[in-house]
């Protein structure tokens, strides 16, 4: 039995990110492993030891701060749980909350969980050309160092990340932490944070299976992992690479 906590499901839910939870559940169940999902939000008591996986998606700038306000009280518990190897999957601006701080449009510093050394700057209009919208939007792909399959995704964000000491992917297509950066995301132990928003685990079935396998093996080393070929997800992934990346 795998237990997943979908954190702040009703507020960090901007871009079809329920797809990630569905993908994890589906992929576990294909392996005949039961999977339980708990939906938790502001004012719920969140236990950071009880679950195998913690997932959080992308929110609006305002919504993200409502969540931060609730999350701060768990700071030490979250830190401990990441150190203990719990799985954290964060898509979109959710992972900004795990850095030092966010510098907002007015230049104010908003303290975050301060678990990792990076910080976020909200993109200010004057940092960009006059005509440009002040968000980073577009298809992104890149390679991570634990899988030989390219990671694909989409970005749509109003922040840039600075002073990160680790990364998830090296960018092939699109931009990284900020327009000049070739690196994106944050990997530490079993923590994965990335600006790739939306249904990351639907769109990257190999990545999903990598984690499913890893989590399953940790629970039961003798487990025989079933391989599913030519699923619609795999075809969608390959078609996208063919049409838009290669």
């Amino acid at each position, binding site marked *: 039995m795998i237990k997943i906590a979908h954190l702040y*499901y009703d507020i960090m839910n901007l*871009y079809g990110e*329920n797809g990630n939870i569905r993908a994890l559940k589906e992929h576990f169940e294909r392996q005949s492993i039961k999977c339980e999902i708990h939906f938790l939000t502001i004012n719920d008591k969140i236990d950071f030891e009880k679950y195998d996986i913690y997932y959080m998606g992308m929110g609006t700038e305002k919504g993200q701060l409502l969540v931060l306000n609730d999350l701060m009280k768990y700071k030490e518990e979250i830190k401990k749980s990441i150190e203990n190897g719990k799985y954290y999957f964060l898509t979109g601006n959710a992972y900004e909350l795990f850095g030092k701080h966010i510098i907002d449009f007015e230049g104010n510093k908003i303290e975050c969980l301060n678990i990792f050394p990076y910080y976020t700057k909200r993109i200010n209009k004057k940092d960009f050309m006059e005509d440009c919208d002040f968000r980073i939007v577009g298809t992104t792909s890149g390679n991570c160092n634990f899988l030989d399959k390219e990671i694909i995704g*989409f970005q749509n964000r109003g922040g840039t990340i600075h002073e990160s000491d680790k990364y998830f992917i090296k960018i092939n297509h699109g931009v990284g932490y900020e327009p000049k950066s070739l690196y994106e995301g944050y990997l530490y132990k079993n923590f994965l944070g990335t600006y790739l928003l939306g249904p990351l685990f639907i769109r990257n079935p190999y990545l999903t299976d990598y984690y499913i396998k890893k989590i399953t093996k940790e629970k039961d080393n003798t487990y025989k992992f079933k391989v599913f070929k030519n699923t619609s997800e795999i075809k969608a992934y390959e078609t996208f690479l063919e049409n838009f990346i290669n």
Partner: protein
Amino acid sequence: MRIALAIIICRIANTLSKLFKKEGTVIGGYWALKIYPNVLNNIKYPKYVIGVTGSSGKGSTTELIAHILNKNNITYAYNKNGSNAINGITSLILSNTSLNGKYKKQALLMELDEKHMVHLLEHFTLTHLVITNITRDQPPRNAHPEYIQSLIKSILKDNMHLVVNVDDPLVYALTLDHKGKKTYYGMDKIKYSKETNLHNIDAQYCPICGNKLTYEFYHYGHLGKYKCTKCNFERPNPEFLAHTIDIENKTIFINKDEIKIPSNFLYSVYFTTAAYSLANTLGLKKEKILHAINIDPFIPKRLNIYNFYGRTWQMLSSKNENNLSYKQSIDYILHEKGTKTIVLGFDNSSRRYKENDVSWLWDIDFESLKDKNIDKIVVIGRFKYDIMTRLEYAKIEKEKLILIENLETEIIDTLKNKTKGNIYSMVCFDKESELKEILKKEGITHD
């Protein structure tokens, strides 16, 4: 002098563009603004300058308002073709302005793009603004609803009369600080009102204090009757309330008036109520408003209906990147009687930009397609595997799903021999043209 030049340039450019079989509604505005960037500041505007904006429904609302104005003998111009950004609007205004800078009609009516209107309204102001809703819509260009809400907020002025849909908390919140006139409209509970089964609704938290909103009911998305659990923010009683709604028979009541709605889509309740409310705030005679809506109704855009070997094939457009509009098309199909086959697909997420995000597929309740009256779902287009994935996750029976690899060689045969019932296609613009081309070769033209 300069204004006359801009107007002349605008007309010449539009005429030339039409000669070359282009739309001829945008280019004139572009050139006029090039030679006189502040041309719109120097127009003498009419008594009514009406804007209609929102994430969806603004086109239909504008059209119905135009129809009502027409039947009330108020002269007006509006952007009928949907050119709702700055060049299109400039072109619209200048095409109806005399060389001395005086706008020639009694009313200027504009469907306004919620993003572009920020720049447009730096040059002039509105007397009335209708706001239909603020929902997820084309995120690569619109980011998210709160962002659009902040843009709309930035253009509000106290001398504007706001006519707004208060079922949307993001819209209602915009009016709280408004010192000018405001008119509220909304929809009462109907038999399809429910709680959505995806956790994807926006505005689940109070836009004022940030605490959770509770909903007595939703119509769709976050449109419904809400109340904050902490502060006193709640959906007010609308001045114009649509109630006793009978979608099947296309009748509703607004307050005491029985009203006919032009189609059995739920959103037509909203756009009819919006247009009715605005017409009332303009002070038009009620009998004349009702006459325009009920007795002499406007005909909505012609439905795309074909006769496919004795089966009705209705073409609906795929409302990509707007999960609520997409869902309403699904609901429309579900509410239709009899066995049906659905064709889904798209080549690009958008016609307006090159970004191809597929996230929105996961915000749509495709689970509702698990319906015994649906015989088959046929999937086409460049993103067919993404749609297939979504439908599989929705647990639609595998034997109901058909994937078309080669549209040209497979679609006719598949639909003819492997599917039953009336056909409803919901595909992107390009794919719809291809389907029409294929039907034409098959000798099937408009019904």
